[in-house]
């Protein structure tokens, strides 16, 4: 069963039951009230008559039985309204206009369910489709036993309660029907967002990650729709990132295969020449040197590529002394700098930073190497740490502004022929960039051609 059917059916059943219970209680109160008023009126009428009759009959009672009989009947008739009261002596009816044998309807004894008020017995009874109030009391006049009773037709009063019940049932049914229809509409309307959610989920599974569900109001379903939207957003973001990553990898592979072509071409050319041509000895020697150089370059490239690949994983960071780091960098680069009469000037104002010491050292060595290649013999390179930033600054040839944004791309070289002569593969800054981002740090570059270049690794602020 669908949720909307369930909700509608159960709420209607509950509503109908509540209305029915309500009506039943109201009707039962009305019935009791009616019965009470019938009973009290009946008893008071009966007892008035009974007292009057017994009291007035005791003082001047005729002796002759016949005269006494007509006296008592007259007395009774003068007191009682005709039609409702019955007077019996023994089993003989002296006055009876009701047409019922009250004594048989109202049996004496404990077995009968009778109510009593003083010595008066009474009850409500339904006889042949009509309702009656019956009250009776035996009376003793001049040592003779009489039986006085009241049989009052109360059908209209009881019927008024019955018609109230019928009206209640009708009104209840109408109210239930209207409420049921309203409930149906409300349920349909409040479940509309589920339909929207369903459609949204279908779109999402169909690969349309940019679709969103319209959110109205502030109920639980709207919250769910909002949650669903933020989930779709997350998925869209992730997919975009995946796509971008795939594109980056594709671009990297394209660059790599392109980059491999030059050394492979050179090796192929030289080896093919040596294999299939008669080459003068010194030219043959040169060809062999070319093959050797290119193979060595390829070997270096594969090492750097391995570094790049290994850097994809997580690294563990520890607080390390920045002063020690800078010293280690100076030590690693001293030989090459000395050969060109260059100096590395350290300035450390930072205590510790969270890092992987070896990786950060190799990143900084890379940057200092770049600075060395860009500088002229005898120049000074500065390696400074301040707050959360480590900077390598040289006063060499600089980087043209339009090249600046691309320098961290793998295989990108500003001056290709010059870099190649110095054994560069265009991977150095890409590796530094990776190391920096593995530390959550940013790599920023600033340069004025012919004046200076400053590369900064900016660590995240604590």
């Amino acid at each position: 069963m669908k949720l909307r059917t369930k909700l509608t059916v159960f709420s209607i059943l509950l509503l109908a039951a509540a209305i029915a219970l309500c009506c039943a209680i109201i009707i039962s109160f009305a019935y009791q009230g009616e019965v009470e008023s019938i009973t009290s009126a009946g008893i008071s009428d009966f007892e008035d008559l009974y007292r009057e009759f017994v009291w007035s009959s005791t003082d001047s009672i005729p002796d002759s039985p016949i005269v006494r009989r007509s006296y008592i009947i007259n007395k009774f008739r003068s007191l009682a309204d005709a039609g409702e009261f019955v007077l019996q002596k023994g089993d003989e009816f002296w006055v009876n206009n009701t047409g019922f044998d009250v004594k048989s309807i109202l049996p004496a004894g404990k077995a009968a369910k009778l109510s009593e008020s003083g010595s008066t017995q009474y009850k409500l009874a339904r006889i042949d489709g009509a309702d009656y109030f019956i009250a009776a009391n035996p009376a003793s006049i001049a040592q003779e036993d009489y039986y006085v009773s009241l049989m009052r037709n109360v059908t209209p009063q009881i019927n008024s309660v019955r018609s109230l019940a019928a009206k209640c049932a009708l009104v209840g049914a109408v109210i239930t029907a209207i409420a049921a229809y309203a409930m149906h509409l409300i349920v349909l309307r409040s479940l509309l967002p589920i339909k929207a959610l369903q459609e949204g989920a279908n779109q999402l599974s169909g690969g349309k990650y940019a679709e969103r569900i319209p959110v109205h109001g502030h109920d639980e379903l709207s919250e769910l729709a909002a949650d669903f939207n933020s989930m779709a957003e997350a998925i869209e973001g992730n997919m975009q990132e995946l796509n971008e990553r795939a594109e980056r990898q594709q671009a990297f592979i394209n660059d790599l295969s392109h980059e491999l072509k030059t050394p492979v071409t050179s090796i192929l050319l030289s080896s093919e020449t040596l294999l299939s041509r008669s080459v003068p000895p010194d030219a043959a020697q040169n060809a062999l040197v070319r093959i050797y150089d290119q193979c060595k370059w390829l070997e270096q490239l594969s090492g750097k590529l391995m570094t790049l690949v290994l850097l994809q994983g997580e690294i563990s960071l520890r607080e390390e002394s920045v002063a020690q780091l800078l010293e280690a960098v100076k030590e690693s680069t001293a030989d090459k700098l000395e050969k060109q009469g260059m100096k590395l000037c350290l300035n450390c104002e930072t205590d510790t930073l969270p890092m992987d010491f070896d990786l950060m050292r190799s990143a900084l060595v890379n940057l200092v190497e770049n600075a060395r290649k860009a500088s002229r013999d005898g120049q000074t390179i500065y390696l400074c740490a301040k707050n959360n930033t480590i900077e390598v600054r040289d006063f060499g040839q600089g980087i043209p502004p339009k090249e600046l944004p691309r320098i961290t791309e793998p295989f990108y070289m500003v001056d290709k022929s010059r870099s190649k002569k110095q054994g560069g593969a265009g991977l150095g800054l890409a590796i530094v960039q990776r190391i920096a981002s593995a530390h959550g740090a940013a790599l920023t570059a600033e340069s004025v051609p012919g004046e200076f270049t400053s590369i900064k690794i900016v660590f995240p602020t604590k």
Partner: protein
Amino acid sequence: MSKNRILVIEDDKDIADSIGLNLELSGYDHTIIDDGLEAAKRLSEDHSFDLALLDVMLPGLDGFALMEHMQKYNIPVIYLTAKADVPSRIKGLKIGAEDYIVKPFSVLELLVRIEKVLDRAGKLNKVLRCRDITIDTEKRTVTKSGEAVALQPLEFDLLVKLIKFKNCTMSRERLLSEIWGVDFVGGTRTVDTHVASLRKKLGLEGVIVTVTRIGYRLED
């Protein structure tokens, strides 16, 4: 007639040197330039080249941009480049290149393509020389020290092939298919007998050397 002059514009020194060595061994004159702007400048001074081998990605001015300079001086161009994508190839050929070769390539293939382009451009030397032998490919005559030598048509073709690819080892199979044609049913022994008769008629013993199990090479 002088040697064909070939301009090589290539920024990778190793590749340029290898190409240069091969051009030299095949009897071409060559000039190597490693920068696009430099090439444009040099062309305005000296442009008597028969062919240019152009890299596309060059410092200064790229190979595509250099095309108009080449066309100004009517120099046929072969692109030699690592750019293997179809749009680049199409662009290269559309703007006027005679050929487009993607790196890495075979040097022997390059030589054949150079020859074809020179031939199409009518710049191929009609007269080949090797030691004291002169061959006129148009008249199909051979002279040794000024004296005419009579050769069979197939012997003549074989001699031309060996001289064009002097210093290159030519396999018997290749000679057979290129001179006798792919349909030829005779064995590679045919090549051996023709080489023997060439050696005898022109006194080329020790010049056309036998490369064991492979074929022959004419050494200059």
